[in-house]
């Protein structure tokens, strides 16, 4: 079994370095001749200079079904054709790929590539968590972000404190699934009264995230201004 790393610059380098240090056989394929020279000097790996979206290049790699293929180019169209050639023509089962446009994650999944990593999505999530402030945290998102699981803490001067859940006017596209209060879990219903420091676990459509955050963390007399 070997690990074949296709495309990528720094990620490919550090990935190859860390995997080879664990004693696995590594092949690195890259289109960039200069990069290949650097890799050949610095890595304990077989370096192949060529375009892996070409079947003839893949054929040189003696790919076996048990191999692991990691695809890291910065173009989704290349990643797609490489993963599909590997899967359909060479019968490789374990394929990991980078995805640049988050819209394509679903496509790769439908084409049988379940290990698709989108750095854009990860960065987007990190930025959004900063945007919404520390009170709101998206801790899980399903179906490429169509459904979000949010965790939000009720701050000290929130206007919803002392109110019933059904009266605070949460948007329709969300459900409060649980409340963590002083270490105890409450499964809420409409009559549950909110308190300072409650941590709400909410299942929501991403478009209402901001509305939820504003509603639950908004300060008491803020609206009068």
């Amino acid at each position, binding site marked *: 079994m070997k690990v074949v790393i296709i495309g990528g610059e720094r990620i490919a380098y550090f990935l190859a370095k860390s995997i080879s240090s664990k004693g696995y056989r590594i092949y690195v394929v890259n289109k960039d001749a200069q990069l290949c020279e650097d890799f050949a000097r610095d890595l304990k790996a077989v370096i192949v200079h060529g375009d892996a*979206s070409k079947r003839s290049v893949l054929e040189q790699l003696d790919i076996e079904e048990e191999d692991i293929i990691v695809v890291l180019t910065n173009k989704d169209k*290349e990643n797609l*054709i490489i993963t*599909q*050639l590997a899967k*359909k*023509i060479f019968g490789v089962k374990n394929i990991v790929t980078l995805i640049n446009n988050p819209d*394509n994650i679903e496509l790769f999944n439908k084409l049988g590539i379940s290990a698709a990593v989108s750095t854009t999505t990860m960065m987007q999530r990190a930025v959004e968590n900063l945007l919404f402030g520390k009170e709101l945290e998206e801790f899980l998102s399903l179906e490429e972000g169509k459904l979000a699981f949010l965790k939000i803490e009720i701050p000290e001067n929130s206007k919803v404190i002392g109110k019933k859940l059904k009266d605070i006017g949460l948007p329709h596209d969300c459900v409060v699934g649980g409340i963590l209060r002083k270490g105890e879990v409450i499964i809420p219903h409409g009559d549950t009264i909110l308190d300072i420091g409650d941590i709400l676990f909410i299942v929501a459509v991403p478009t209402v995230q901001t509305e939820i955050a504003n509603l639950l963390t908004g300060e008491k007399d803020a609206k009068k201004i």
Partner: protein
Amino acid sequence: MRNKSKDNLYLVIIGCGKVGANVASRASSIGHNVVVIDKNEKAFENLTVEFTGFTIFGDATEKDVLMEAKIDRADYVFVLTEDDNTNFLISMACKYYFAVKKVIARVYEPDNIQLFREYDVEVISPTVLAIDKLSDFVVGDYK
């Protein structure tokens, strides 16, 4: 579902080069509804005066652009960019995001043909066509 006759098709053509533009113009001139997509605005200059359809200036590897073309309603999608890898991504998006039944793609590299066919994309390969045609001269009585 509306029953379409052969003389009123909805075609989406991706890539407005010489082939794309000519097919689009001809299809448009005989009354089909045609939408052409290209990411290079200048490419639309290839269309002839007969063309009465719509043009979309955008990158068809992006889902939003395909959606704008209402590609899910297309009877045929012709994927004719200059690059096999681009054509593969677009063909797969048409099939798997928009359930287009008839996707026909241009494939230059003969090595790629099998992959397109595995996913039920019809292939036109200029390379293979030329090889076959030229080989006919050499192995004339082969057939």
